[in-house]
């Protein structure tokens, strides 16, 4: 048996994987080329080689965050921009960390822990330590998904601390890998179409963890502080350095508008956007490339204390040229939001007021009244724009057919 026509896809080298699958489940929505080799000698049997290529549509986004996985508000905002609600896989392991919507699948990188909780205790390594993570498997599976091949991904159960049997992940349009180490391994970094790092300053982290944990029996201010301090060395050594690789960094700092504010309620948020990233045009205020300082509150807009302050300008970040859009303060009313939105450019919104509308949709999420929610939403629109540009560029590539 032989296949008489051979089609060569231009992107064959980068997006296709050649595998000898032992299981026959190969996902749908893919163009599959199956080559049956006629064996010339009868003594050796060659296994069939299957080359599976998708149109190469899967866009991979990396998000580095220390705030749990797949349930974070950033993820929900992002999936909401693409439409549809992200939910855990139906009928599977209830402790799965994965979120799936129509267009997006978000996986938690904790699933690639090579050591479970007991194992880490024995070895004396935290979850932050690269030694607790299987980067080879992470790379293989992200690569497979990117090239349109479904994978059986392990599940790390945060309740039991064990590694559960794997779940099937089918290649989506947008694949988000969220966790502590999305940009740690150079090979995985290469696969990312866009990467984001959520950089929370120590004071804000402390304030947020107090909010999170103070209601728990067993926790006290001291235990929360001790937990942050104990994890800090590993965090600084292994997680923090990833921010130099990110295409966008969302930096969350205490406000400068209120002297000595330590409650972490009013925040100063900086959206640091790398210049020169393919398909990514940084948001700007008034005049691209110049330095702007803007207080929208005044005659046209009245704000309540402490108000809102914006700034924008070029900077260098770890040796890269970046544009930084900064917001200090909080939104109190809808018209403040829409006013601010109307003065920003390159938002990649599809209609006037889209950012505001998205913020309203999730008005009950944390950060809905300040720069964290605002910039997360904007990054969501940017990722959508990036995705559409990538898809447009790929469908433009013609298929060449050659006869075998």
């Amino acid at each position, binding site marked *: 048996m032989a296949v008489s026509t051979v089609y060569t896809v231009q992107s064959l080298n980068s997006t296709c994987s050649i595998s000898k699958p032992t299981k026959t489940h190969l996902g749908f929505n893919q163009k599959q080329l199956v080559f049956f080799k006629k064996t010339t000698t009868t003594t050796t049997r060659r296994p069939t080689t299957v080359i599976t290529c998708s149109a190469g549509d899967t866009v991979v986004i990396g998000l580095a965050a220390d705030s749990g996985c797949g349930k974070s508000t950033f993820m929900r905002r992002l999936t909401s921009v693409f439409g549809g609600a992200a939910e855990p896989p139906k009928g599977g392991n209830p402790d799965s960390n994965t979120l799936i919507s129509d267009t997006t699948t978000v996986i938690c990188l904790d699933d690639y822990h090579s050591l479970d909780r007991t194992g880490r205790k024995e070895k004396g390594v935290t979850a932050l330590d690269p030694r607790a993570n299987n980067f080879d498997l992470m790379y293989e599976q992200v690569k497979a998904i990117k090239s349109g091949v479904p994978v059986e991904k392990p599940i790390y159960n945060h309740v039991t601390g064990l590694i559960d049997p794997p779940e099937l992940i089918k290649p989506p349009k947008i694949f988000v890998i969220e966790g502590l180490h999305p940009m740690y391994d150079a090979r995985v970094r290469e696969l990312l179409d866009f990467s984001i790092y959520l950089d929370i300053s120590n004071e804000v982290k402390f304030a947020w963890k107090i909010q999170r944990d103070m209601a728990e029996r067993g926790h006290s201010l001291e235990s929360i502080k001790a937990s942050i301090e*104990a994890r800090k060395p590993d965090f600084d050594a292994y997680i923090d350095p990833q921010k130099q690789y990110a295409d966008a960094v969302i930096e969350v700092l205490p406000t400068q508008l209120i002297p000595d504010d330590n409650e972490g309620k009013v925040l100063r948020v900086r959206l640091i956007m790398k210049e020169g990233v393919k398909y990514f045009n940084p948001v700007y205020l008034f005049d691209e490339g110049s330095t702007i300082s803007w207080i929208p509150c005044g005659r046209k807009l009245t704000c309540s204390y402490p108000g809102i302050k914006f700034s924008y300008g070029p900077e260098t970040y770890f040796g890269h040229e970046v544009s930084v859009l900064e917001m200090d303060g909080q939104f109190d009313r809808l018209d403040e939001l829409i006013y601010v939105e109307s003065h920003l450019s390159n938002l990649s919104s599809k209609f006037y007021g889209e950012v505001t509308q998205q913020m309203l949709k999730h008005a009950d999420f944390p950060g809905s009244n300040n720069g964290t929610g605002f910039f997360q939403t904007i990054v969501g629109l940017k990722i959508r724009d990036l995705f559409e540009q990538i898809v447009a560029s790929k469908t433009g590539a013609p298929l060449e057919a050659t006869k075998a």
Partner: protein
Amino acid sequence: MASSFTLTSLNPCLSFRSISNGEINSTKKIMIKMSMITPSSKDGTRSKAMKFKGTQMREKKLTEMIEQKVVEANQVCGEDETSDECKVAWDEVEEISQAKADLRLKLEKLQQDPLESFCQENPETDECRIYED
């Protein structure tokens, strides 16, 4: 400290029709108070969304684990603050605290019981018994 919204228009799309005409003034009629969300229940065990026994068991387990692991961490670090064991002990506390917070977020904000879809397929399991207050 619950969030409160006053929306004169329930359909956000309607309100934007006027905005797309460039009328910022008309939005002043739509007043929304957005406040930072803090968990409304202190003990977190009573929630309309908690439906299944399995979820109640998980929540109870996580609460106990947090208490227990904080005690452990304090013990271990009391001996040597700079040891690997101390780091790992507090990392475990962090992991469980985050897991508990995630569960709470699901139940309170998203009003979903995480076992919902699992229990649809497996209603006869112990975990899927309906939780009664």
